[in-house]
């Protein structure tokens, strides 16, 4: 920023005032910038910032049609004491623990296989694995409900080849969550594959050549060079996948509705039910705040762990 002459020439008795004047002067000079930002900022404030802050406020209130009442931390107490929340939290954790590592590992594995191929094969497989990612989860959930159909579904049909007896996957409380996990793992991690491929492309060839001269075999080169150098990508993908798993919703509402019983109840589905079926806006907001905090904590732990390991 160019210091405007006003700052240097003003008498030292009124530094405060002149600093404000200088600020206003720069602001006026750059007024076009503010005008360019205006439409986005208005929308951002109205539909993101204010609602986020408001959500925190509502979480301390009991919502009424005419007047809302302050209830302190009641909603949070209710949240932590309710069985429904415990079950939803545990289910979400179970889903996350099984899907996130597998999704990232599968992305790494497939990208490692695709990367050495020729240009045509590369773009073919990249396209094939990314295609399901562009289709709506609504469609994917609908077709998987059909795939899991007890009598006519494709899944039981293939399992019978492997000698595994048919199951009514989505309607038994001990299999429903597993069915959702299997489905998530079998949907190809299109984003992960593309990001890993980009990362692999950026690793200098010379590193591999010198390792080769030192007598490292293909697996050692992959494990000692590729995997460590892709750590930033891995970190980013784990975070992305973690956030996605914690917010799993579409599959739940379209395939199981949280059931049977509450076997597949997840956090976001619970929030949705609290808010729009039970009209418990305060409670739903408290649950959403807890989801936010959990996501935040996970993100921080993840970040710390991976970076500390990487620096040693």
């Amino acid at each position, binding site marked *: 920023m160019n210091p405007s002459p006003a700052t240097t020439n003003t008498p030292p008795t009124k530094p405060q005032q002149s600093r404000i004047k200088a600020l206003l002067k720069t602001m006026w000079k750059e007024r076009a910038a503010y005008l360019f930002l205006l439409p986005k900022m208005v929308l951002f404030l109205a539909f993101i910032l204010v609602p986020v802050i408001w959500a925190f406020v509502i979480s301390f209130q009991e919502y009424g049609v005419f007047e809302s009442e302050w209830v302190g931390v009641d909603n949070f107490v209710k949240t932590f004491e309710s069985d429904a929340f415990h079950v939803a939290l545990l289910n979400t954790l179970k889903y996350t623990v099984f899907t996130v590592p597998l999704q990232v590992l599968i992305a790494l594995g497939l990208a490692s296989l695709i990367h050495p191929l020729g240009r045509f094969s590369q773009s073919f497989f990249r396209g094939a694995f990314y295609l399901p990612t562009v289709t*709506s989860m609504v469609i994917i959930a609908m077709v998987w409900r059909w795939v899991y159909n007890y009598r006519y579904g494709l899944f039981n049909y293939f399992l019978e080849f492997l000698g595994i007896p048919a199951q009514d996957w989505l309607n038994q409380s001990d299999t429903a969550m597993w069915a959702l996990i299997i489905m998530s793992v079998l949907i190809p991690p299109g984003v992960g594959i593309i990001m890993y491929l980009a990362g692999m492309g950026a690793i200098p060839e010379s590193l591999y050549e010198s390792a080769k001269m030192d007598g490292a075999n293909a697996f050692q080169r992959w494990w000692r060079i590729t995997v460590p150098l892709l750590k930033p990508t891995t970190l980013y993908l784990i975070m992305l996948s973690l956030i996605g798993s914690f917010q799993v919703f579409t599959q739940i509402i379209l395939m199981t509705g949280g059931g049977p019983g509450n076997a597949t109840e997840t956090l976001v589905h619970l929030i949705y039910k609290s808010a729009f079926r039970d009209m418990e*806006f305060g409670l739903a907001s408290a649950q959403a705040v807890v989801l936010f905090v959990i996501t935040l904590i996970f993100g921080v732990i993840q970040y710390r762990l991976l970076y500390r390991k990487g620096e040693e």
Partner: protein
Amino acid sequence: MGKSFTPSKFVTYTVLIVWAVISLLPLYWVFSTALQLSEYEDEATGQKVSYVESVPPQLYPMGIPKYFEELGKANEAEEAGDTAKAAHHEERMDAIVDDTFSGFATLFQSTSIWKWFFNSAYIAIVVTLGILIIDTMAGYVLAKKKFPGRNLIFWLIVGTMMIPGQITLVPMFMMVQNFNLMDTHWALILPDLAMVFGVFLMRQYMLSIPNELIDAAKIDGASEWKTFWTVVVPLAKPALATLGIFTFMNVWNSFLWPIIVLNDADLYTLPVGLKTLQDQNLAIFKLLMSGAAVAAIPMILVFIMFQRYFIKGLTLGGVKE
């Protein structure tokens, strides 16, 4: 690319092909079920056979072999001079075609899927155009202008990208109610226009545009607005393509918020329409898969046409070491 085919290459290709088949099978199954014969009279037994619900499942639309079977019989009969029999088989061929597409026919006749399709398309286009304009403007000044408050605004925007969207559901619902926007498309369009990913993406891209080009235009006496449109926007075309495609995809596929604010069936977008279709016809899989196919086809076409922008977008907005 080597000419020799080593065992390790064989393993690589086998794994990739098997995994690709598993990955694409559900999508294939949407189309296969949508085009499956619903039921068909078995000539030998005279019984109606349901193909969508057969054990084991029919792995491809049975109309295809049946059609050629009847075609062969019709030709045979014609050669033998039995026109009545030939006509009978030709009739059956028509019936097979009708039955194959009956899911789509029912869908277009007895639901509002045309309206849902139109709603989805116009909302996605309006939001995409709006986002392209306002996010490019915002991204440009955040990258290229120095003004008080710039960093604060940028970090505010980046910070909210991490917040799970579900947290705003209740406040947004109340706002929409207070402004009487329930059951309007404004309730979808306005919040979508507020999404911040595009600002971040455009700013990152704008940083790579040389300042000299912008300064040169200014020395020539062009106004800010003119510089923006004639210099900055053309230079940002690759990022614009990427942002446009991702915005279109997100809006087209958006589900949670639309099911909350839309109640009138004429205003539904495709994902909401599909959900109600499923709620009403839980077990009619041919019809459901026809609906799913209608919703899937546009995104598949967009993907095939603009594949490289999808890939560029993921790597552009991604990790910065």
